[in-house]
Protein backbone atom coordinates (compact mmCIF):
# COMPACT_ATOMS: atom_id res chain seq x y z
CA UNK A 1 0.00 0.00 0.00
CA UNK A 2 1.28 3.45 -0.81
CA UNK A 3 2.19 5.91 1.91
CA UNK A 4 -0.54 8.12 3.36
CA UNK A 5 1.46 11.24 2.65
CA UNK A 6 4.18 11.38 0.04
CA UNK A 7 5.92 14.72 -0.21
CA UNK A 8 8.23 15.06 -3.22
CA UNK A 9 10.73 17.85 -3.80
CA UNK A 10 8.48 20.31 -2.00
CA UNK A 11 9.69 23.89 -2.25
CA UNK A 12 8.38 27.17 -0.93
CA UNK A 13 10.02 30.47 -1.73
CA UNK A 14 8.75 33.79 -0.43
CA UNK A 15 9.46 36.96 -2.38
CA UNK A 16 11.59 39.51 -0.57
CA UNK A 17 9.81 42.84 -0.61
CA UNK A 18 11.08 45.18 -3.27
CA UNK A 19 13.54 42.81 -4.88
CA UNK A 20 13.79 39.81 -7.14
CA UNK A 21 15.31 37.73 -4.39
CA UNK A 22 13.55 34.88 -2.64
CA UNK A 23 13.57 33.45 0.86
CA UNK A 24 13.98 29.71 0.48
CA UNK A 25 11.81 28.68 3.41
CA UNK A 26 11.41 25.09 2.32
CA UNK A 27 13.83 23.79 -0.26
CA UNK A 28 13.45 20.51 -2.11
CA UNK A 29 12.04 18.53 0.80
CA UNK A 30 10.91 14.93 0.35
CA UNK A 31 9.52 12.53 2.93
CA UNK A 32 6.70 10.11 3.47
CA UNK A 33 4.33 9.33 6.30
CA UNK A 34 2.83 5.85 6.45
CA UNK A 35 -0.65 5.11 7.73
CA UNK A 36 -0.70 5.09 11.51
CA UNK A 37 2.87 6.32 11.71
CA UNK A 38 4.16 9.18 13.86
CA UNK A 39 6.82 11.29 12.29
CA UNK A 40 8.69 13.92 14.25
CA UNK A 41 9.97 17.16 12.74
CA UNK A 42 12.71 18.95 14.64
CA UNK A 43 14.87 21.95 13.91
CA UNK A 44 15.65 25.36 15.27
CA UNK A 45 13.40 28.42 14.99
CA UNK A 46 13.26 29.78 11.46
CA UNK A 47 14.35 26.54 9.81
CA UNK A 48 11.09 26.24 7.88
CA UNK A 49 9.20 23.81 10.09
CA UNK A 50 6.12 25.99 10.27
CA UNK A 51 6.18 26.68 6.54
CA UNK A 52 6.48 22.97 5.82
CA UNK A 53 3.56 22.24 8.14
CA UNK A 54 1.45 24.91 6.46
CA UNK A 55 2.26 23.49 3.05
CA UNK A 56 1.24 20.01 4.12
CA UNK A 57 -2.00 21.25 5.69
CA UNK A 58 -2.62 23.31 2.54
CA UNK A 59 -2.71 26.66 4.28
CA UNK A 60 0.05 27.77 1.91
CA UNK A 61 0.63 27.15 -1.76
CA UNK A 62 3.84 25.34 -2.65
CA UNK A 63 6.18 27.00 -5.14
CA UNK A 64 7.20 23.63 -6.48
CA UNK A 65 6.96 19.94 -5.77
CA UNK A 66 4.19 17.50 -5.03
CA UNK A 67 2.09 16.71 -1.96
CA UNK A 68 0.49 13.33 -2.60
CA UNK A 69 -2.09 12.48 0.02
CA UNK A 70 -3.74 9.06 -0.15
CA UNK A 71 -2.80 8.75 -3.79
CA UNK A 72 -3.96 12.20 -4.93
CA UNK A 73 -1.75 15.20 -5.59
CA UNK A 74 -3.38 17.78 -3.32
CA UNK A 75 -0.61 20.33 -3.84
CA UNK A 76 -2.07 21.42 -7.18
CA UNK A 77 -5.53 22.17 -5.79
CA UNK A 78 -5.91 25.93 -5.28
CA UNK A 79 -6.55 26.81 -1.61
CA UNK A 80 -10.00 28.21 -2.36
CA UNK A 81 -11.06 24.86 -3.80
CA UNK A 82 -9.19 22.77 -1.28
CA UNK A 83 -11.62 24.10 1.33
CA UNK A 84 -14.23 21.88 -0.26
CA UNK A 85 -11.95 19.04 -1.32
CA UNK A 86 -12.61 15.68 0.30
CA UNK A 87 -9.05 15.72 1.64
CA UNK A 88 -9.72 18.83 3.70
CA UNK A 89 -11.37 16.85 6.46
CA UNK A 90 -8.62 14.24 6.42
CA UNK A 91 -5.73 16.64 7.09
CA UNK A 92 -6.18 18.58 10.30
CA UNK A 93 -3.93 20.38 12.71
CA UNK A 94 -3.43 21.17 16.37
CA UNK A 95 -1.87 24.58 16.89
CA UNK A 96 0.97 25.69 19.06
CA UNK A 97 -0.75 28.44 21.00
CA UNK A 98 -4.21 27.32 22.09
CA UNK A 99 -5.20 30.85 23.15
CA UNK A 100 -4.40 32.24 19.70
CA UNK A 101 -5.94 29.37 17.78
CA UNK A 102 -9.40 29.65 19.34
CA UNK A 103 -11.77 32.36 18.18
CA UNK A 104 -12.35 34.57 21.27
CA UNK A 105 -15.99 35.05 20.33
CA UNK A 106 -16.74 31.34 19.93
CA UNK A 107 -17.69 29.16 22.87
CA UNK A 108 -15.93 25.81 23.21
CA UNK A 109 -19.04 24.20 21.78
CA UNK A 110 -19.04 26.44 18.70
CA UNK A 111 -15.33 25.92 18.13
CA UNK A 112 -15.65 22.13 18.22
CA UNK A 113 -18.85 22.23 16.18
CA UNK A 114 -17.40 24.50 13.47
CA UNK A 115 -15.68 21.78 11.39
CA UNK A 116 -18.74 19.53 11.73
CA UNK A 117 -21.02 22.35 10.62
CA UNK A 118 -18.85 23.20 7.65
CA UNK A 119 -17.56 19.84 6.50
CA UNK A 120 -19.49 17.23 8.46
CA UNK A 121 -21.82 14.66 7.01
CA UNK A 122 -25.57 15.38 7.18
CA UNK A 123 -25.82 12.82 9.97
CA UNK A 124 -23.14 14.61 11.96
CA UNK A 125 -24.82 17.94 11.47
CA UNK A 126 -28.18 16.58 12.54
CA UNK A 127 -26.82 15.26 15.84
CA UNK A 128 -24.37 18.10 16.35
CA UNK A 129 -24.80 18.45 20.10
CA UNK A 130 -24.29 14.72 20.62
CA UNK A 131 -21.18 14.67 18.46
CA UNK A 132 -19.66 17.68 20.24
CA UNK A 133 -20.37 16.15 23.64
CA UNK A 134 -18.82 12.89 22.50
CA UNK A 135 -15.71 14.73 21.28
CA UNK A 136 -15.47 16.58 24.59
CA UNK A 137 -15.52 13.22 26.37
CA UNK A 138 -12.90 11.87 24.00
CA UNK A 139 -10.45 14.67 24.79
CA UNK A 140 -11.32 14.78 28.47
CA UNK A 141 -13.02 18.16 28.46
CA UNK A 142 -15.82 18.32 31.06
CA UNK A 143 -19.10 18.81 29.22
CA UNK A 144 -20.13 21.70 31.44
CA UNK A 145 -17.23 23.73 30.05
CA UNK A 146 -18.64 23.61 26.50
CA UNK A 147 -20.55 26.85 27.02
CA UNK A 148 -17.45 28.79 28.00
CA UNK A 149 -15.42 31.24 25.99
CA UNK A 150 -11.69 30.59 25.49
CA UNK A 151 -10.65 33.19 28.07
CA UNK A 152 -12.66 31.32 30.67
CA UNK A 153 -10.68 28.11 30.12
CA UNK A 154 -7.22 27.15 31.33
CA UNK A 155 -4.39 26.57 28.86
CA UNK A 156 -4.79 22.80 29.07
CA UNK A 157 -8.54 23.03 28.59
CA UNK A 158 -8.05 25.35 25.64
CA UNK A 159 -5.71 22.87 24.02
CA UNK A 160 -8.23 20.08 24.62
CA UNK A 161 -10.78 22.18 22.73
CA UNK A 162 -8.22 22.64 19.94
CA UNK A 163 -7.61 18.89 19.81
CA UNK A 164 -11.34 18.12 19.82
CA UNK A 165 -11.79 20.50 16.88
CA UNK A 166 -8.91 18.86 15.01
CA UNK A 167 -10.19 15.31 15.46
CA UNK A 168 -13.87 16.19 14.97
CA UNK A 169 -13.78 15.11 11.33
CA UNK A 170 -11.72 11.98 12.09
CA UNK A 171 -8.67 13.04 10.06
CA UNK A 172 -6.18 10.52 8.76
CA UNK A 173 -3.26 12.89 9.21
CA UNK A 174 -3.01 15.11 12.26
CA UNK A 175 -0.32 17.73 12.22
CA UNK A 176 0.79 18.76 15.70
CA UNK A 177 2.60 22.08 15.61
CA UNK A 178 4.39 22.14 18.97
CA UNK A 179 1.13 21.31 20.71
CA UNK A 180 2.52 21.56 24.22
CA UNK A 181 5.16 24.27 24.05
CA UNK A 182 2.75 26.95 25.24
CA UNK A 183 1.53 24.88 28.20
CA UNK A 184 2.74 24.39 31.75
CA UNK A 185 4.98 21.39 32.22
CA UNK A 186 2.42 19.62 34.39
CA UNK A 187 -0.24 20.02 31.70
CA UNK A 188 2.12 18.99 28.90
CA UNK A 189 2.29 15.42 30.13
CA UNK A 190 -1.47 14.94 30.23
CA UNK A 191 -1.92 16.47 26.78
CA UNK A 192 0.81 14.24 25.33
CA UNK A 193 -0.72 11.24 26.98
CA UNK A 194 -4.05 12.18 25.45
CA UNK A 195 -2.49 12.59 22.01
CA UNK A 196 -0.78 9.20 22.17
CA UNK A 197 -4.02 7.58 23.28
CA UNK A 198 -6.08 9.26 20.54
CA UNK A 199 -3.64 8.15 17.87
CA UNK A 200 -4.03 4.53 18.86
CA UNK A 201 -7.77 4.79 19.28
CA UNK A 202 -8.53 6.65 16.05
CA UNK A 203 -5.69 5.23 13.92
CA UNK A 204 -4.32 8.60 12.84
CA UNK A 205 -0.89 9.42 11.48
CA UNK A 206 0.96 12.21 13.25
CA UNK A 207 3.37 14.80 11.98
CA UNK A 208 4.74 16.02 15.28
CA UNK A 209 6.67 19.27 15.26
CA UNK A 210 8.59 20.01 18.41
CA UNK A 211 11.57 21.66 19.95
CA UNK A 212 11.61 19.10 22.72
CA UNK A 213 13.78 16.28 21.48
CA UNK A 214 12.93 13.99 24.39
CA UNK A 215 9.26 14.23 23.43
CA UNK A 216 10.00 13.49 19.82
CA UNK A 217 11.96 10.42 20.77
CA UNK A 218 9.19 9.24 23.03
CA UNK A 219 6.26 9.80 20.68
CA UNK A 220 7.50 9.22 17.16
CA UNK A 221 8.49 6.28 15.01
CA UNK A 222 10.62 8.31 12.65
CA UNK A 223 12.16 11.73 12.81
CA UNK A 224 13.08 14.40 10.27
CA UNK A 225 15.75 16.93 11.17
CA UNK A 226 15.44 20.21 9.34
CA UNK A 227 18.02 22.94 8.92
CA UNK A 228 17.52 26.10 6.88
CA UNK A 229 14.74 24.75 4.70
CA UNK A 230 16.29 21.36 4.03
CA UNK A 231 15.96 17.99 5.66
CA UNK A 232 19.49 17.14 6.77
CA UNK A 233 18.79 13.84 8.40
CA UNK A 234 15.95 11.38 8.68
CA UNK A 235 15.47 7.90 10.00
CA UNK A 236 13.96 5.76 12.71
CA UNK A 237 13.83 7.81 15.88
CA UNK A 238 16.05 5.60 18.01
CA UNK A 239 18.54 5.34 15.17
CA UNK A 240 18.78 9.10 14.68
CA UNK A 241 18.86 9.82 18.39
CA UNK A 242 21.43 7.12 19.22
CA UNK A 243 23.62 7.45 16.15
CA UNK A 244 23.16 10.92 14.72
CA UNK A 245 25.06 11.17 11.45
CA UNK A 246 24.75 14.85 10.57
CA UNK A 247 26.86 17.29 12.58
CA UNK A 248 23.79 19.49 13.14
CA UNK A 249 21.84 16.58 14.57
CA UNK A 250 24.77 15.75 16.80
CA UNK A 251 24.83 19.28 18.10
CA UNK A 252 21.08 19.10 18.73
CA UNK A 253 21.37 15.79 20.55
CA UNK A 254 24.20 17.03 22.67
CA UNK A 255 21.95 19.83 23.88
CA UNK A 256 19.33 17.42 25.21
CA UNK A 257 19.41 17.41 28.99
CA UNK A 258 20.16 13.91 30.22
CA UNK A 259 18.50 12.63 33.40
CA UNK A 260 21.75 11.03 34.52
CA UNK A 261 24.50 13.63 34.94
CA UNK A 262 27.19 10.97 34.65
CA UNK A 263 25.97 9.97 31.22
CA UNK A 264 25.96 13.53 29.97
CA UNK A 265 27.57 14.07 26.63
CA UNK A 266 29.97 16.85 25.95
CA UNK A 267 28.08 19.81 24.53
CA UNK A 268 28.81 20.66 20.93
CA UNK A 269 28.38 24.39 20.94
CA UNK A 270 27.61 25.77 17.50
CA UNK A 271 29.25 29.05 16.72
CA UNK A 272 27.90 31.83 14.57
CA UNK A 273 24.51 32.44 13.05
CA UNK A 274 22.71 30.34 10.48
CA UNK A 275 23.35 31.33 6.86
CA UNK A 276 20.87 33.66 5.25
CA UNK A 277 17.87 31.83 3.75
CA UNK A 278 17.65 34.49 1.01
CA UNK A 279 18.82 32.93 -2.25
CA UNK A 280 21.43 30.68 -0.62
CA UNK A 281 24.14 29.51 -3.02
CA UNK A 282 22.99 26.15 -4.40
CA UNK A 283 26.40 24.51 -4.21
CA UNK A 284 27.22 25.30 -0.60
CA UNK A 285 26.14 23.10 2.27
CA UNK A 286 23.57 25.07 4.29
CA UNK A 287 25.32 24.16 7.50
CA UNK A 288 28.73 25.31 6.36
CA UNK A 289 30.11 28.05 8.58
CA UNK A 290 28.55 26.68 11.73
CA UNK A 291 29.63 23.13 11.15
CA UNK A 292 32.49 21.90 13.32
CA UNK A 293 33.51 19.53 10.51
CA UNK A 294 33.22 21.82 7.51
CA UNK A 295 35.90 21.51 4.85
CA UNK A 296 36.48 23.15 1.51
CA UNK A 297 34.45 20.50 -0.32
CA UNK A 298 31.34 21.66 1.57
CA UNK A 299 31.49 24.99 -0.26
CA UNK A 300 31.74 23.35 -3.67
CA UNK A 301 29.19 20.62 -3.45
CA UNK A 302 25.85 20.60 -1.66
CA UNK A 303 25.57 17.28 0.14
CA UNK A 304 22.47 15.25 -0.69
CA UNK A 305 20.60 12.82 1.53
CA UNK A 306 22.45 9.53 1.40
CA UNK A 307 21.59 6.27 3.11
CA UNK A 308 23.71 5.01 5.97
CA UNK A 309 24.21 1.51 7.29
CA UNK A 310 20.85 1.31 9.05
CA UNK A 311 17.72 0.93 6.98
CA UNK A 312 15.90 4.15 6.35
CA UNK A 313 18.56 6.32 7.91
CA UNK A 314 19.54 9.20 5.61
CA UNK A 315 21.89 12.09 6.21
CA UNK A 316 22.90 15.01 4.02
CA UNK A 317 26.56 15.28 4.90
CA UNK A 318 29.64 14.36 2.95
CA UNK A 319 31.08 12.74 6.02
CA UNK A 320 27.93 11.61 7.76
CA UNK A 321 28.37 7.88 7.85
CA UNK A 322 31.96 7.87 6.67
CA UNK A 323 34.51 5.96 8.69
CA UNK A 324 37.20 8.37 9.74
CA UNK A 325 35.84 11.85 9.39
CA UNK A 326 38.04 14.61 8.07
CA UNK A 327 40.88 15.61 10.30
CA UNK A 328 39.55 19.10 10.75
CA UNK A 329 37.17 19.51 13.62
CA UNK A 330 36.83 15.79 14.25
CA UNK A 331 38.09 16.33 17.77
CA UNK A 332 34.89 18.10 18.64
CA UNK A 333 32.98 15.16 17.36
CA UNK A 334 34.91 12.58 19.25
CA UNK A 335 34.56 14.48 22.47
CA UNK A 336 30.84 14.18 21.81
CA UNK A 337 31.21 10.56 22.80
CA UNK A 338 29.44 9.07 19.80
CA UNK A 339 30.65 5.78 18.43
CA UNK A 340 33.14 6.44 15.68
CA UNK A 341 30.98 4.67 13.14
Amino acid at each position, binding site marked *: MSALLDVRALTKRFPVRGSERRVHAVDDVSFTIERGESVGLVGESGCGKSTLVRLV*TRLLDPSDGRIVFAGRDVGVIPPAQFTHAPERRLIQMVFQ*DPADSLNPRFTAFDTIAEPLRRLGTPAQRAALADHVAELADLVGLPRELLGRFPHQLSGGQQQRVGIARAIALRPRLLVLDEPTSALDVSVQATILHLLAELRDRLGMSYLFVSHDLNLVRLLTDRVLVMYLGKIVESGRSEEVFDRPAHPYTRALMSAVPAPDPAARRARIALVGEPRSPIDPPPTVCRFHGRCPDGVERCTREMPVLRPGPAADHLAACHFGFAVGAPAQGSGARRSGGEPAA
Partner: protein
Amino acid sequence: MSALLRHGRYVLGENPVTAVAFGLFVVLILLALVGPSLAPHDPLASDTARKLEPPSARYWFGTDQVGRDILSRVLVATRLDLAISLSAVTLSFVVGSGLGASAGFFGGWTDRIVTRVTDTIMAFPLFVLAMAIVAALGNTLANIVYATAIINLPFYARMARAEVNVRREAGFVEAARLSGNGSARILTVHVFPNCLPPMMVQASLNLGWAILNAAGLSFIGLGVRPPTPEWGIMVAEGAAFIVSGEWWIALFPGLALMLAVFCFNLLGDGLRDLIDPRRRT
Protein backbone atom coordinates in the same frame (compact mmCIF):
# COMPACT_ATOMS: atom_id res chain seq x y z
CA MET B 1 -30.07 35.59 25.12
CA SER B 2 -30.54 35.52 28.88
CA ALA B 3 -26.77 35.30 29.19
CA LEU B 4 -26.54 38.52 27.20
CA LEU B 5 -29.07 40.22 29.45
CA ARG B 6 -27.20 39.03 32.53
CA HIS B 7 -23.98 40.33 31.05
CA GLY B 8 -25.65 43.66 30.25
CA ARG B 9 -26.84 44.00 33.82
CA TYR B 10 -23.37 43.16 35.06
CA VAL B 11 -21.70 45.80 32.86
CA LEU B 12 -24.18 48.48 33.91
CA GLY B 13 -23.95 47.55 37.59
CA GLU B 14 -20.18 47.46 37.53
CA ASN B 15 -19.77 50.86 35.94
CA PRO B 16 -22.09 53.65 37.13
CA VAL B 17 -20.84 56.05 34.44
CA THR B 18 -21.92 53.58 31.79
CA ALA B 19 -25.27 53.21 33.50
CA VAL B 20 -25.74 56.99 33.47
CA ALA B 21 -24.76 57.14 29.79
CA PHE B 22 -27.18 54.37 28.90
CA GLY B 23 -29.91 56.07 30.90
CA LEU B 24 -29.27 59.31 29.07
CA PHE B 25 -29.27 57.47 25.75
CA VAL B 26 -32.63 55.91 26.53
CA VAL B 27 -34.01 59.35 27.44
CA LEU B 28 -32.71 60.78 24.16
CA ILE B 29 -34.25 57.97 22.16
CA LEU B 30 -37.58 58.39 23.98
CA LEU B 31 -37.51 62.13 23.32
CA ALA B 32 -36.81 61.47 19.68
CA LEU B 33 -39.80 59.14 19.53
CA VAL B 34 -42.36 61.09 21.55
CA GLY B 35 -40.77 64.57 21.69
CA PRO B 36 -43.31 66.24 19.38
CA SER B 37 -46.24 65.11 21.53
CA LEU B 38 -44.50 66.32 24.71
CA ALA B 39 -43.92 69.77 23.31
CA PRO B 40 -46.18 72.25 25.17
CA HIS B 41 -46.42 74.63 22.22
CA ASP B 42 -46.28 74.48 18.45
CA PRO B 43 -42.55 74.69 17.65
CA LEU B 44 -43.23 76.62 14.45
CA ALA B 45 -45.92 79.03 15.64
CA SER B 46 -44.49 82.51 16.03
CA ASP B 47 -46.00 85.14 18.26
CA THR B 48 -44.19 88.42 17.82
CA ALA B 49 -46.05 89.89 20.77
CA ARG B 50 -44.16 87.52 23.11
CA LYS B 51 -40.76 87.52 21.43
CA LEU B 52 -37.53 87.28 23.40
CA GLU B 53 -39.22 86.41 26.67
CA PRO B 54 -36.88 85.00 29.30
CA PRO B 55 -37.62 81.57 30.83
CA SER B 56 -40.87 81.64 32.80
CA ALA B 57 -43.51 79.25 34.11
CA ARG B 58 -45.26 79.44 30.77
CA TYR B 59 -42.18 79.27 28.57
CA TRP B 60 -39.66 77.18 30.55
CA PHE B 61 -36.81 77.88 28.16
CA GLY B 62 -38.10 81.29 27.06
CA THR B 63 -39.01 82.37 23.54
CA ASP B 64 -36.87 83.33 20.55
CA GLN B 65 -36.78 86.42 18.36
CA VAL B 66 -40.10 85.61 16.68
CA GLY B 67 -41.81 84.37 19.83
CA ARG B 68 -41.49 80.58 19.29
CA ASP B 69 -41.29 78.37 22.38
CA ILE B 70 -37.68 77.21 22.76
CA LEU B 71 -38.52 74.18 24.92
CA SER B 72 -40.83 72.84 22.23
CA ARG B 73 -38.26 73.47 19.55
CA VAL B 74 -35.48 71.75 21.53
CA LEU B 75 -37.71 68.72 22.17
CA VAL B 76 -38.85 68.43 18.57
CA ALA B 77 -35.30 68.88 17.23
CA THR B 78 -34.10 65.74 19.09
CA ARG B 79 -35.57 63.45 16.47
CA LEU B 80 -33.99 65.25 13.54
CA ASP B 81 -30.54 65.56 15.11
CA LEU B 82 -30.46 61.95 16.25
CA ALA B 83 -31.73 60.75 12.89
CA ILE B 84 -29.05 62.65 10.99
CA SER B 85 -26.19 61.51 13.21
CA LEU B 86 -27.35 57.90 13.59
CA SER B 87 -27.91 57.37 9.89
CA ALA B 88 -24.65 59.11 8.97
CA VAL B 89 -22.69 57.03 11.49
CA THR B 90 -24.41 53.82 10.43
CA LEU B 91 -23.64 54.56 6.81
CA SER B 92 -19.98 55.32 7.39
CA PHE B 93 -19.65 52.38 9.80
CA VAL B 94 -21.04 49.88 7.31
CA VAL B 95 -19.29 51.20 4.21
CA GLY B 96 -16.06 52.21 5.94
CA SER B 97 -15.57 49.02 7.91
CA GLY B 98 -16.51 46.93 4.89
CA LEU B 99 -13.89 48.65 2.75
CA GLY B 100 -11.29 48.72 5.51
CA ALA B 101 -11.82 45.10 6.52
CA SER B 102 -11.45 43.92 2.91
CA ALA B 103 -8.33 46.04 2.51
CA GLY B 104 -6.80 44.63 5.68
CA PHE B 105 -7.74 41.07 4.91
CA PHE B 106 -7.01 40.74 1.22
CA GLY B 107 -4.16 43.25 0.98
CA GLY B 108 -2.67 43.88 -2.46
CA TRP B 109 -4.63 46.10 -4.82
CA THR B 110 -7.75 46.26 -2.68
CA ASP B 111 -5.60 47.60 0.12
CA ARG B 112 -3.80 50.09 -2.07
CA ILE B 113 -6.97 51.55 -3.56
CA VAL B 114 -8.82 51.81 -0.24
CA THR B 115 -5.82 53.34 1.51
CA ARG B 116 -5.32 55.95 -1.23
CA VAL B 117 -8.99 56.91 -1.26
CA THR B 118 -9.14 57.34 2.51
CA ASP B 119 -5.85 59.27 2.49
CA THR B 120 -7.27 61.56 -0.17
CA ILE B 121 -10.38 62.27 1.89
CA MET B 122 -8.24 62.88 4.96
CA ALA B 123 -6.13 65.38 3.04
CA PHE B 124 -9.02 67.87 3.06
CA PRO B 125 -10.12 69.82 6.10
CA LEU B 126 -13.08 67.59 6.85
CA PHE B 127 -15.64 70.23 7.73
CA VAL B 128 -14.79 72.20 4.62
CA LEU B 129 -15.19 69.01 2.60
CA ALA B 130 -18.63 68.45 4.12
CA MET B 131 -19.52 72.06 3.28
CA ALA B 132 -18.39 71.54 -0.29
CA ILE B 133 -20.37 68.34 -0.67
CA VAL B 134 -23.57 69.89 0.64
CA ALA B 135 -23.04 73.04 -1.41
CA ALA B 136 -22.43 71.01 -4.57
CA LEU B 137 -25.16 68.40 -4.14
CA GLY B 138 -27.81 70.66 -2.72
CA ASN B 139 -29.06 71.58 0.68
CA THR B 140 -31.18 68.51 1.52
CA LEU B 141 -31.37 66.24 4.52
CA ALA B 142 -30.07 63.25 2.56
CA ASN B 143 -27.06 65.24 1.37
CA ILE B 144 -26.24 66.34 4.93
CA VAL B 145 -26.25 62.67 5.93
CA TYR B 146 -24.06 61.70 2.95
CA ALA B 147 -21.60 64.52 3.60
CA THR B 148 -21.29 63.57 7.27
CA ALA B 149 -20.90 59.91 6.33
CA ILE B 150 -18.21 60.60 3.74
CA ILE B 151 -16.02 62.68 6.01
CA ASN B 152 -16.25 59.99 8.71
CA LEU B 153 -15.57 57.11 6.35
CA PRO B 154 -11.75 57.20 6.57
CA PHE B 155 -11.76 56.71 10.36
CA TYR B 156 -13.75 53.51 10.11
CA ALA B 157 -11.85 52.26 7.10
CA ARG B 158 -8.49 52.83 8.76
CA MET B 159 -9.52 51.32 12.02
CA ALA B 160 -11.13 48.25 10.45
CA ARG B 161 -8.10 47.77 8.25
CA ALA B 162 -5.71 47.88 11.19
CA GLU B 163 -7.85 45.65 13.38
CA VAL B 164 -8.36 43.04 10.66
CA ASN B 165 -4.73 43.18 9.64
CA VAL B 166 -3.44 42.16 13.06
CA ARG B 167 -5.82 39.21 13.16
CA ARG B 168 -5.32 38.06 9.59
CA GLU B 169 -2.51 35.70 10.54
CA ALA B 170 -3.97 34.63 13.88
CA GLY B 171 -4.13 30.95 14.70
CA PHE B 172 -7.90 30.91 14.77
CA VAL B 173 -7.98 32.16 11.18
CA GLU B 174 -5.84 29.23 10.03
CA ALA B 175 -7.98 26.94 12.15
CA ALA B 176 -11.10 28.32 10.51
CA ARG B 177 -9.60 27.55 7.11
CA LEU B 178 -8.87 24.00 8.21
CA SER B 179 -12.48 23.74 9.34
CA GLY B 180 -13.65 24.43 5.81
CA ASN B 181 -14.28 28.17 5.80
CA GLY B 182 -13.65 30.19 2.65
CA SER B 183 -12.02 33.62 2.75
CA ALA B 184 -15.28 35.59 2.73
CA ARG B 185 -16.68 33.58 5.62
CA ILE B 186 -13.46 33.81 7.58
CA LEU B 187 -13.53 37.58 7.26
CA THR B 188 -17.19 38.06 8.10
CA VAL B 189 -17.72 35.34 10.70
CA HIS B 190 -14.33 34.88 12.33
CA VAL B 191 -12.24 38.02 11.94
CA PHE B 192 -14.58 40.99 11.75
CA PRO B 193 -16.68 40.26 14.85
CA ASN B 194 -13.45 40.28 16.85
CA CYS B 195 -12.75 43.82 15.63
CA LEU B 196 -16.14 45.07 16.81
CA PRO B 197 -15.28 46.20 20.35
CA PRO B 198 -12.86 48.99 19.35
CA MET B 199 -15.05 49.82 16.35
CA MET B 200 -18.03 50.37 18.62
CA VAL B 201 -16.06 52.79 20.78
CA GLN B 202 -15.15 54.66 17.62
CA ALA B 203 -18.78 54.67 16.45
CA SER B 204 -20.14 56.10 19.66
CA LEU B 205 -17.49 58.81 19.87
CA ASN B 206 -18.22 59.52 16.26
CA LEU B 207 -21.93 59.87 16.94
CA GLY B 208 -21.27 62.95 19.05
CA TRP B 209 -19.01 64.30 16.38
CA ALA B 210 -21.63 63.67 13.69
CA ILE B 211 -24.24 65.63 15.67
CA LEU B 212 -21.78 68.51 16.03
CA ASN B 213 -21.00 68.33 12.34
CA ALA B 214 -24.67 68.43 11.33
CA ALA B 215 -25.29 71.28 13.77
CA GLY B 216 -22.20 73.02 12.42
CA LEU B 217 -23.49 72.78 8.86
CA SER B 218 -26.82 74.21 9.96
CA PHE B 219 -25.03 76.92 11.94
CA ILE B 220 -23.33 78.25 8.84
CA GLY B 221 -26.52 77.96 6.84
CA LEU B 222 -25.68 74.85 4.83
CA GLY B 223 -27.67 72.33 6.79
CA VAL B 224 -31.27 72.06 7.77
CA ARG B 225 -33.21 75.09 6.67
CA PRO B 226 -35.09 77.37 9.04
CA PRO B 227 -37.70 77.37 10.41
CA THR B 228 -37.20 73.63 10.99
CA PRO B 229 -36.20 73.15 14.62
CA GLU B 230 -32.63 71.89 14.79
CA TRP B 231 -30.10 72.45 17.57
CA GLY B 232 -27.40 73.88 15.32
CA ILE B 233 -29.65 76.48 13.70
CA MET B 234 -31.12 77.46 17.04
CA VAL B 235 -27.65 78.07 18.45
CA ALA B 236 -26.80 80.08 15.35
CA GLU B 237 -29.92 82.16 15.63
CA GLY B 238 -29.41 82.71 19.34
CA ALA B 239 -25.76 83.63 18.97
CA ALA B 240 -26.67 87.09 17.72
CA PHE B 241 -28.73 87.80 20.84
CA ILE B 242 -26.20 86.72 23.48
CA VAL B 243 -24.48 90.11 23.37
CA SER B 244 -27.77 91.89 24.04
CA GLY B 245 -28.47 89.69 27.05
CA GLU B 246 -30.93 87.12 25.62
CA TRP B 247 -28.79 84.14 26.61
CA TRP B 248 -31.56 81.53 26.69
CA ILE B 249 -32.03 81.30 22.94
CA ALA B 250 -28.62 79.78 22.32
CA LEU B 251 -28.06 78.18 25.72
CA PHE B 252 -30.82 75.57 25.80
CA PRO B 253 -30.30 74.03 22.36
CA GLY B 254 -26.56 74.21 23.08
CA LEU B 255 -27.08 72.33 26.34
CA ALA B 256 -29.11 69.67 24.56
CA LEU B 257 -26.34 69.33 21.99
CA MET B 258 -23.72 69.07 24.70
CA LEU B 259 -25.72 66.50 26.63
CA ALA B 260 -26.13 64.31 23.54
CA VAL B 261 -22.42 64.46 22.66
CA PHE B 262 -21.52 63.80 26.28
CA CYS B 263 -23.83 60.79 26.37
CA PHE B 264 -22.44 59.27 23.19
CA ASN B 265 -18.87 59.73 24.34
CA LEU B 266 -19.57 57.96 27.62
CA LEU B 267 -21.50 55.23 25.86
CA GLY B 268 -18.42 53.98 24.01
CA ASP B 269 -16.71 52.07 26.80
CA GLY B 270 -19.92 50.49 27.96
CA LEU B 271 -20.81 49.40 24.46
CA ARG B 272 -17.40 47.79 24.08
CA ASP B 273 -17.79 45.94 27.37
CA LEU B 274 -21.20 44.72 26.25
CA ILE B 275 -20.11 43.18 22.99
CA ASP B 276 -16.70 41.89 24.06
CA PRO B 277 -17.04 38.31 25.29
CA ARG B 278 -13.70 38.61 27.05
CA ARG B 279 -15.30 41.00 29.52
CA ARG B 280 -17.62 38.23 30.59
CA THR B 281 -16.94 36.44 33.81
